[in-house]
């Protein structure tokens, strides 16, 4: 089993809330993603058993959404918004800056498995651009100094 007892409990609770069981698919994959950091076929199979929905239905839904990586990622998943408002404020150069700082290309993970860098569509922080999301947190109004500090803090935390 990949999912922990706590995740399974949360999934069951969420399934019980909805008028129809199938609505629990998205909450279930969200809970699994929060625990594991990514999704895969084995996780779909486990969820399928817990909420009694065919595995393919879980996989069909999960692969529709881009929020959940389908491959393992580093401990910190850095998602830089590259959409128009952020791009006008230098998002492309922010990505380059991060590539340089982390010594990886977009889409890659650092050797120490700490950081994965990707760029994503608009994250709803258009008036505080440029921005990036690291795991659950948004970091807005970014400047090189801020980015340096954020990375340094995370590295220190390990």
């Amino acid at each position: 089993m990949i999912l922990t007892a706590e995740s399974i409990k949360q999934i069951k609770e969420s399934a019980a809330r909805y008028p129809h069981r199938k609505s629990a698919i998205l909450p279930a994959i969200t809970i699994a993603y929060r625990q594991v950091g990514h999704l895969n076929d084995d996780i779909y199979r486990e969820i399928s058993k817990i909420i009694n929905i065919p595995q393919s239905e879980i996989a069909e839904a999960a692969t529709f959404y881009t929020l959940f990586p389908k491959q393992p990622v580093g401990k910190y998943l850095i998602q830089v918004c590259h959409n128009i408002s952020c791009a006008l404020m230098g998002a492309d150069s922010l990505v380059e800056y991060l590539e340089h700082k982390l010594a990886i290309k977009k889409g890659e993970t650092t050797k120490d498995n700490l950081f994965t860098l990707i760029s994503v569509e608009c994250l709803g922080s258009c008036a505080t651009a440029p921005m990036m999301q690291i795991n659950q947190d948004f970091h807005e109004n970014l400047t090189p100094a801020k980015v340096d500090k954020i990375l340094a803090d995370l590295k220190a935390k390990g």
Partner: protein
Amino acid sequence: MFYSPVITNASEAAKSDKLHLFRYVEDPDQVKVATYEQHGGYKAWRKALTGMSPEQVAETVKNAGLRGRGGAGFPTGLKWGFVPKNSPKPRYLVCNADESEPGTCKDRVLMERDPHAVIEGMAIAAYAIGCHVMFIYIRGEFNHSIDRMEAAMREAYAAGHLGKNLYGTGYDLEMIVHTGGGAYICGEETALLNSLEGERGMSRMRPPFPAIEGLYACPTIVNNVETLATVPHIINHGAEWYRKLGTEKSAGTKIFSLSGHVKRPGNYEVELGFNLKKFIYDPAFGNGIIGDKKLKGVIPGGASTPFLTPDMIDVGLDYESLTVKGSMLGSGAVIVFHEQTCIVWVLLKLIHFFHHESCGKCTPCREGTAWLEQIIHRIEAGEGHPGDIEAMDEVCSNILGRTICPLGDAAVMPIQSAIRLYRDEWQYHIDNHRCLVDTRFEFK
């Protein structure tokens, strides 16, 4: 607790007797039910539930002239009226908090800083349509909004604003916070409902409209966060008061997200009809263009609305005036770019987005957005062919109005307007294999 550092005009709102959505958004305690109540919160909900019939509530909102703030601007009270009166099926209310239209970041402020206003609006709307289980669908990336809304919901239950036998009336109302998975299309109401049902977030054919057959094939109303957050104020102050705000056909106030090359990007609540030029240049709002450069263009209503050139910006920010200019109010996201912005580059960003977000159900949108991105990408890379502009324009017309949901339209309207308004620049790009202006935005 974490807030978005976004600038608002809360202090103006606090002084104004017209602005109401933003009055307390700079008060860190506003998220607590006690503070919210002190500021007059949940009075409207109590008033509606204990003193008004559902029809009266809907009628009031209809008379106030409130129009949907999610993008389409459909009259809210009218929509509520479409719910069949004597259907034996349960009815559902869904608050659309998927906020994913590039440029738009207003609903997030309300959820993070005034979550009870959203709940109160939802509750009143739920009552107006006879719903006992209501949902808020929040985009999955908005972790802080999700936490805020969940915390507020728990408080609201504890304070007796949600749950069973509310205010002793016998009315029950449950609320479920549902979170998305990263898909712009799930902001489109029928795709949202599919997503909520656990299906892939693909749009549905209409008819049947959600108000007749929506969530779980039951009558369902989908409303935007801002739309619903406005409702308590209308109940408190009356339809007349609201109707007098804004313009005749675009009543009320609206939050505009201002982003791009302005000195003071932020979220600002203004009366509808507010002058766009003033909005960009007034120190209380955009305070002019970064580096005092020349303005090149504005997207007035989010990534899916047609462009305005500098000569067109002396216009009121309301549904009608923008339509006259060939654009739309959309979700109220004003994106500003200055003279050193390559229009092809802008369109590449936009079409990449729409291609990425197309759900894949209908052929024109699925295939057409991909093709358009390939053409624009080629032009942007300096490899455009003669005839590309015409081809693009034709592909756009083959998508416009021919798709299941409006995402297809959203993808092509900016392209068609950009071709119309900036054709020379496209041509320059193709002929000279490079940008007319050097577009390089450093982050600093």
